[in-house]
């Protein structure tokens, strides 16, 4: 196996690159999910914000 990989160094580069890309893809995927969670918090807060704003607004 080691002899085969030493004969084909580009395959070692391939394995390392795939590992790096898997890490980046996983990180980006988790980052996307965290943003979805933040958006949920924002949408939950938004109605209360608008109700408190309308309650405190002098025009209403």
């Amino acid at each position, binding site marked *: 196996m080691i002899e085969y990989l030493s*004969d*084909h160094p*580009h*395959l070692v*580069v*391939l394995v390392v*690159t*795939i590992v790096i*890309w898997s890490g980046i*893809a996983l990180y*980006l*995927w988790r*980052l*996307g999910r965290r*943003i*979805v969670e*933040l*958006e949920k918090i*924002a949408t939950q*807060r938004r109605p209360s*914000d608008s109700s408190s704003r309308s309650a*405190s607004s002098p025009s209403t």
Partner: protein
Amino acid sequence: MKYAFYVAGLAVAIIVGWGKGILRPTRWRALLAIILIAVGIIGGLYPPIVGTFQDAIVESRGKPVSINVLLPPNGIMPLSDSVIWCRDISGSTVKARMVKNNKTVMAQSIPQKLLIHTSPITHDFFDISSVTHAPWIMLPYIPGLGERARILFFHVPAAWTGFLAYVITMLYSLRYLRTSREEDDAVAVASASIGTLFTILAYISGAIWAKFNWGHFFNWDTRELSVLLLLAIYIAYFVLRANIRSDAQKRVAATYAIVAAVAALFLIFIVPRITTSLHPGSRDDTNIGPILSPEQDTLDTTKAAIFSIMLAGFTLLYSWMLNFVARYRLIANYFQHSHSKTYHD
């Protein structure tokens, strides 16, 4: 043919990436980006680069070379216990000595991969890794580049994505000037930051390649200088953005982004082509570079296909990143405003 590959790749990326609007989260965009880039990495790094004896002769002026040469099934004929006669797929022949692990091997026991030592007196080269059976996929050998030709699949898509990001910044800045929507401003800033990230990636990958091909990380080449200037222009944009306090200042930044994208077009596509440069497609080059040249032999079909997959993958990766970076900016703005409102109340 290669233009068809580029157009198909970019069409897929644009339809999946922008089809439902850039701010709408979709899993397809992310999944396709991950798959296409993984396929592109495997396609770019797995196939062996295979040349001919002529490539080896050109490559080995006064120094030993080690390159893969594809030999047809009947391309090796034993002349004695150790000397063989070899013919490659182009029809060139050499007399050689087969060596594996520095030991002469018998001509009758031909392994799939072997080292051929030719006589240094009669031939220019004496280290060739021959491939006796054609692999199902392979890339052509380019004298002077060898294995370093694989940079095409990473460096060029990264540079393309950087430029695309700056154009998208310009378009959304124009839209912001027209509509004053917070979303357009968030997409413009997010696109500029991702564009700068990809331009830096292209710059670093190019510098590492240049160290091994041209001898130095930085060679005072026109394109190296023009992209450095481009990065300076966008760093100035981020400095401007960091000091924004009002909507009127945002409009100034949007105007700057439009002018910067015009400068990007000039610095990326025009300056390196009207001056002499080490990069392909410069004024002293015979064509406009392997990617864009209409000549058929400038880019092999396999390479064009893998390059198009990477082009589509990087474009989708950009649209995926743009989606959540812009959404993050909008949420951050929302929390900042609600926090400051609560604090001041």
